């Protein structure tokens, strides 16, 4: 529908926004090259510091706007951990808070025009998901020893079913990091690409009002998605952590 040759001037580059390019010069991207990824990661770190450190500097008992946001974020993640994993999950609060703050801030920064969405890259979300997977697995074995494997042996099921369930459980356990990471990256990428496609249609004068309305609607949806995906990623991390802390549920 989009780029039939007959439509001539219409050109869509919905994926160009995701291209990783060096900040200085045009050279190859090696592992240490400062790229637009580096820039936007740095901005993410800066915004988090501004939000959580700068705003709480005065430590007022009656909070201002920025301090309220910091306290809200703190309370939100804290409550999530206590609700999902119980009191003993609080030890891992800084870790989970790091994940949540990084994802939510990176997602929202990606909504700025001309910005680069770091969380739309599978490389980024895969690192986050694999880190969670490895942490949870190691933690599970360290805290529970071999009995951590009991998680896959469903005691409540009839005995003949147990081996089959165990197989399914093991597969689903190893699929976790894949779904965990692709869910976030996919949501971010799809939304941004769709906005870009609608923006491409704005080149046709007759369609442009519709295109602008569509972009606005998508943008509203994306704001929702940005928060929800950060929330989903964090709460799934909590759920996996609970498995490691209490494998016999």
């Amino acid at each position, binding site marked *: 529908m989009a780029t039939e040759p007959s439509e001539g001037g219409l050109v869509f580059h919905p994926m160009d926004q995701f291209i990783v390019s060096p900040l200085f010069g045009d050279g190859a991207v090696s592992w240490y090259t400062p790229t637009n990824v580096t820039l936007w990661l740095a901005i993410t770190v800066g915004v988090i510091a501004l939000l959580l450190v700068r705003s709480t500097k005065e430590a007022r008992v009656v909070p201002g706007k920025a301090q309220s946001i910091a306290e809200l974020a703190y309370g939100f993640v804290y409550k999530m951990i206590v609700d999902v994993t119980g009191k003993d999950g609080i030890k891992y609060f800084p870790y989970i808070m790091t994940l949540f703050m*990084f994802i939510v801030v990176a997602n929202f920064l990606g909504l700025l025009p001309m910005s680069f969405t770091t969380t739309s890259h599978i490389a980024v979300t895969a690192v986050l998901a694999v880190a969670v997977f490895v942490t949870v697995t190691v933690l599970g074995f360290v805290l529970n020893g071999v009995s951590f494997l009991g998680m896959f042996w469903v005691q409540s099921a009839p005995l003949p079913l147990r081996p089959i369930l165990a197989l399914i459980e093991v597969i689903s356990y190893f699929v976790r990091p894949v779904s965990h990471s692709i869910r976030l990256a996919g949501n971010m990428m799809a939304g941004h690409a769709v906005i870009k496609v609608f923006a491409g249609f704005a080149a046709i004068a007759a369609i442009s009002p519709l295109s602008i309305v569509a972009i606005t609607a998508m943008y509203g949806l994306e704001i929702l998605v940005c928060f929800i995906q950060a929330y989903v990623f964090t709460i799934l991390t909590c759920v996996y952590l609970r498995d490691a802390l209490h494998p016999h549920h």
Partner: protein
Amino acid sequence: MANTTEAAHGAAGSHGADAAHGAAAGGHGAEAAGMPQLEFGTFPNQIFWLIVALVAIYFILSKVALPRIAGILADRQDAITNDIAAAEELKLKAHEAEAAYDKALADARSEAMRIANETRAAMQAELDEAIAKADADIGERAAESEKAISEIRASAMESVEAVAKDTTGALVAALGGTADEGRINAAVDARLKG
């Protein structure tokens, strides 16, 4: 189709992620424009900088932000607890004050009652005395008046006698008799007594 950048963009745009996925999987190198997410050449770079960023965030949060926010929340909790305790105390005090006020009010009321009763009794006594005195006065006056009246009556009687005698004398004289004073007096006295 997949070899031209233009077409790859079109595929990604028109058929969404799946088409782009296919295009990228279909033999694109790192330079191809199918899906930048799948250009594995940029992975080390992204992963390296991501880890740097995550470590930075982790230290910012665990060393500065989270303890500080926890402190703020604890302080607030303390302040609220203190305020509630203070409010409880003030409430108790208010109850005490109210009780004291009620007691004072009751005391004042009974005192007022007592004073009123005393005053009433004193007034009653004074009144009784005054009435008794007045009664005595009135009695005395009445007795005096009685006496005066009886004196007046006696003198009036005397006057009547004198007038009667004079009249009788004059009548006798007018009828041509000679008035014998002794007889006239006797006759008048006899008539008056009768």
